[in-house]
């Protein structure tokens, strides 16, 4: 089991409150996923020549200012850093490989959770309510988000195994289900020179779809390839800088419910996570069909 939630806010005046709107959704999925939780929020993009990086430190009292100081000193470039406990968002105009290599060499304990112009990722082990409080998720703002509560079934419970998974830029994926061909998919992608951080099945799906899009597929074509390649049970919810996308496996083994409202589109594993959204009584509530693609644009 696992819980997925997604929210895309159409009404611009509600975007400042997206974190608050999401809270009952995420916490509503606690029974489906009590061991880890995470969320990717898509915010206003950083300046055109910059990228932002969500970073995860293993301890709450990690010295982020020390890291920023070393970054400036070693790379000769002033870095912008906003921190929440063991989490930081670093903004820089330096090349991504330069930053990745520097972190690996000087701060190997730091995990890079995401790269992009809009995406911020927060994820950790613990109850969804605790993870949300740890990163002050009720106060995030943005246009759309993807969240997940995990009940691990196929790989370990660690912060790195929590969802969302990311690959490339401004791309994330959460998964309810299990893939039976994740290992062969991973080996195939490793032959393409793609590195993996975990042995998790979802990471394989995430990197596969991102690889397809890098090879020239648009999102829908990549998802078509996903239906051909992914074997197992899945409801997948994905985020790009301006879209949310949802697919279910042909047997619809894992649930999903959608509420479309004039002000928002909300997706969850079960209706109980949608029940507290404003005016949901007037939303169009439906169950997405198996093997169909659902894409919502900001």
């Amino acid at each position, binding site marked *: 089991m696992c819980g997925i939630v997604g929210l895309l806010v159409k009404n611009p005046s509600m975007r400042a409150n997206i974190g608050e709107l999401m809270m009952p959704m995420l916490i509503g999925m606690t029974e489906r996923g009590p061991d880890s939780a995470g969320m990717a929020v898509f915010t206003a993009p950083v300046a055109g020549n910059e990228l932002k990086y969500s970073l995860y430190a293993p301890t709450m009292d990690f010295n982020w200012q020390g890291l920023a100081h070393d970054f400036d000193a070693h790379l000769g470039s002033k870095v912008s850093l906003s921190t929440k406990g063991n989490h930081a968002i670093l903004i820089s105009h330096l090349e991504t490989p330069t930053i990745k290599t520097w972190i690996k060499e000087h701060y190997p304990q730091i995990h890079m959770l995401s790269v992009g112009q809009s995406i911020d990722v927060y994820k950790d082990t613990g109850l969804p309510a605790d993870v949300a409080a740890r990163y002050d998720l009720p106060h995030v703002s943005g246009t759309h988000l993807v969240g997940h509560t995990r009940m691990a079934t196929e790989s370990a419970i660690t912060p790195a195994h929590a969802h969302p998974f990311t690959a490339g830029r401004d791309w994330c994926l959460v998964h309810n289900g299990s893939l039976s061909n994740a290992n062969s998919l991973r080996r195939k992608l490793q032959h393409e020179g793609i590195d993996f951080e975990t042995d998790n099945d979802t990471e394989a799906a995430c990197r596969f779809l991102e690889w397809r899009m890098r090879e020239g597929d648009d999102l829908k074509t990549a998802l078509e390839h996903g239906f051909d390649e992914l074997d197992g049970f899945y409801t997948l919810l994905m985020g790009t800088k301006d879209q949310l996308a949802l697919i279910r496996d042909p047997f*619809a083994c894992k649930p999903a419910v959608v509420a479309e409202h004039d002000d928002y589109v909300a997706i969850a594993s079960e209706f109980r996570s949608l029940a507290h959204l404003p005016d949901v009584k007037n939303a169009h509530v439906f169950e997405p069909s198996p093997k169909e693609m659902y894409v919502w644009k900001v």
Partner: protein
Amino acid sequence: MESLKFDLAATPLREVNQYLHSPASELNGKHVVIDNPNGAHNIAVGLKSDIKVTIDGHAGYYAAGMNQLANVVVTGSAGTGVAENMMSGVVHVKGFASNAAGATAQGGLLIIDGDAGLRCGISLKGADIVVGGSVGSFSAFMAQAGNLVVLGDAGEALGDSLYEARLFVRGEVKSLGADCEEKPMDDEARQILVDLLAKSGHADVSPDSFKLYGSARTLYNFHVDNAGAY
């Protein structure tokens, strides 16, 4: 009819279900309204009295499961396994129903006004199911007895490994499952269909617009001498 209201936003579900399990002599003839179901699981399961229950909103998994005698109405949608293993009574979902609606139900009537998800009426054992919309793939898988009426379309592998249930479909059937075939609509089947359409609020729908599907009886050890047992 004596009416009683519970608000699930204020009262724990367990308390409501425990009330609904009071002795039948105390409940018979009552109408209980449940507000703010908000997708909670297991609402009004295991009822055993002649009571009417209205779940005013969307119900979660297994709503009205194992129902006996009671008449349960869900004004919104129902999650996985609504009215699963129903024995008798009526369960009416006014919105859509998720997967495995009416699974293994042995008696009673399940009415779904909207669509039903995959595996509707899986292993049906004698109940009647009327779906106003369409049903998903693998519906009536291994259904043994009872009737499934679908006013819309059916997905893939309808009636796979079917025993003696009757499947009436008005729209398109994407594909039939193994050992499921179209049958001629005899008078007995037609009358069953007419009665079920009338009971489920579709009296205006012509029975002639349906096709009947049943078992080709090549997969299981069927002996015509035992036909009366189904």
